[in-house]
């Protein structure tokens, strides 16, 4: 039965940005607020077409900046409207203040990010430093590493975000140009089936908050230090951690509804008998499956551990990996965290969990693909070879790309 249902899906060759726009359209969003920024712009352009052609019944608000984009969505979401926008790079940073306003108001807004490098010098290509630099603002952060996953994730995002147990905003993140502007086949299920999957919008706004001119109430007042500010902060963290169960449930329900299984907060590829494992996220993590396949063909036991979520952080899955007997791990960031312990935000976070295992594990942090720098499958094989070198020789590589304990793949300047 599942097969015949799937056959009804309409497969279109579309860009990653159009997959995001289709995701918002098929989620029946009520309000879109938009300000253009490369490489996101075609997301909101396509949504503008959908609204103009009456294919989507939504209020489309053009504003003067990304800060206003999110401010407008705070207003719309406070009335219980399903709200959407998209941004990139500098635009996301300009939104930063309002991002906290959204999460602290517990508003289930969904926003897609076509990640790009931060200026100066200007850079518009794939680099997750934009989203990684605001990773602690109380939004769920999920990477979509295929075009299909971009579309599917938006449907799941609203399901997770609007659950009253979660009530948190949600970022779906993919890479600028290498995903946003390339085109691949994307399967769009029948709208009736999507409607059955989507959450039902409450008539009187969200349970905790409803902006209604007929019943005027003030929100976001000043609270004194001895009042509930601390408790509200804890509740955001608590809900984020507990949302893992909701995320798993939603992924399972999505698989039952549409026959595509995203597994969980992480995806393990050839990890079961692996002697060295690479941990990474995003489009380049997906590509490194090709590197794993090539190395496996040569008899090397290597695996990929792809992080789909970084907020909430997949602690349990990582600790299970650390306790599995694995000896050597590489952790790769496609983004920078200047001056932190490794130079990469996620490698530092992954390593912070090592005290949960009694096993001795060698970890090599790496940074790749900064500002859209090309990373080929052969480059990825080169990194796996460094990990195999550590396993076989019990020492770390020392070539000129290894700086301050981290591999900066493709580094030209050296030090």
């Amino acid at each position, binding site marked *: 039965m599942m097969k015949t249902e799937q056959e009804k899906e309409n497969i279109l*060759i579309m860009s990653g940005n159009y997959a995001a726009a289709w995701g918002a359209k098929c989620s029946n969003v009520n309000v879109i607020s938009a300000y253009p920024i490369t490489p996101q712009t075609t997301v909101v352009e396509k949504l503008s077409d959908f609204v103009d052609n009456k294919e989507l019944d939504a209020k489309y608000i053009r504003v003067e900046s990304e800060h206003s984009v999110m401010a407008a969505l705070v207003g719309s979401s406070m009335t219980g409207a399903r709200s959407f926008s998209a941004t990139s790079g500098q635009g996301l940073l300009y939104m930063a203040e309002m991002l906290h306003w959204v999460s602290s108001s517990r508003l289930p807004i969904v926003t897609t990010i076509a990640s790009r490098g931060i200026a100066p010098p200007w850079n518009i290509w794939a680099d997750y430093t934009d989203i990684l630099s605001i990773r602690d603002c109380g939004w769920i952060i999920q990477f979509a590493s295929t075009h299909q996953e971009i579309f599917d994730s938006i449907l799941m995002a609203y399901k997770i975000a609007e659950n009253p147990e979660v009530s948190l905003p949600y970022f779906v993140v993919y890479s600028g*140009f*290498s995903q946003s*502007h*390339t085109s*691949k*086949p994307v399967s769009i299920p029948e709208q009736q089936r999507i409607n059955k999957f989507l959450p039902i919008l409450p008539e009187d706004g969200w349970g905790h908050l409803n902006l209604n001119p007929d019943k005027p109430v003030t929100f976001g007042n000043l609270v004194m230090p001895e009042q509930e500010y601390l408790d509200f902060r804890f509740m955001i963290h608590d809900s984020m951690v507990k949302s893992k169960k909701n995320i798993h449930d939603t992924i399972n329900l999505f698989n039952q509804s549409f026959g595509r299984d995203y597994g969980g907060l992480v995806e393990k590829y050839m990890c079961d008998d692996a002697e060295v494992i690479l941990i990474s996220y995003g489009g380049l993590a*997906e*590509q490194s499956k090709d590197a794993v396949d090539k190395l496996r063909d040569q008899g090397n036991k290597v695996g990929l551990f792809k992080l789909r979520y970084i907020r909430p952080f997949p602690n349990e899955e990582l600790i299970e990996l650390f306790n599995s007997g694995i000896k050597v791990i590489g952790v790769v960031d496609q983004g920078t965290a200047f001056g932190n312990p490794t130079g990469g935000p996620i490698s530092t976070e992954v390593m912070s969990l090592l005290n949960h295992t009694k096993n001795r594990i060698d970890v090599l942090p790496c940074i790749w693909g900064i500002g859209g720098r090309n990373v080929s499958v052969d480059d990825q094989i080169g990194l796996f070879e460094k990990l195999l070198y550590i396993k076989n020789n019990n020492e770390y590589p020392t070539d000129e790309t290894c700086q301050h304990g981290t591999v900066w793949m493709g580094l030209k300047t050296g030090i």
Partner: protein
Amino acid sequence: MTTGSTKPAKSEITFFSRGGQGGITSCQILAEAAYIEGYKDVMSIPQIGAERRGAPIRAFLIISQNIIRTVSAVTKPDVVLVFDEAMLKLPPIINAIPRKNCKVLVNTKKLNKETPLSDEIEIYTFPGTSIAMNLGLTLEGLPLVNVPILGAFSKLTGLVSMESIEKSLQNKWSEKAEKNIKSIHMAFDKTIKVN
């Protein structure tokens, strides 16, 4: 439709055009045609920078009998499509064409003998500009070779059938596709191997 077993598992195609010639649209149409043909996965990759009319533009297409996982650049294309022979004077373009194991298609009536292409690659030509002018396939007076070139591509590679390209054109332009369909057949017939 399914692809024959003689077709390679994966092919990579580079499009060299000038801003305004429709190279990126051409890449997109061929992606759809290849998917109609029965390839399991396709990926069109427009090169993005500071595009402007007349400036060299690159686009890449990967067609595969397996799932495509790559997000990296195409550096060893199996086929190179050149929309304007004059582009072969540009070092970045000549340097991006492999010295062997590659088929190059050039839009020209007669290939300039001085063209610095390797002797070890197959070279084909087709008179795309005159085909476009004869059929009135123009944009603001400039000939559009982006559709005819797909007929020439089908002839020299056999990777995507004319039927699949026709379907892709019909999906895009419905009844208005007629002239474009005619153009791919004219290009198919007039594509010749020169090396």
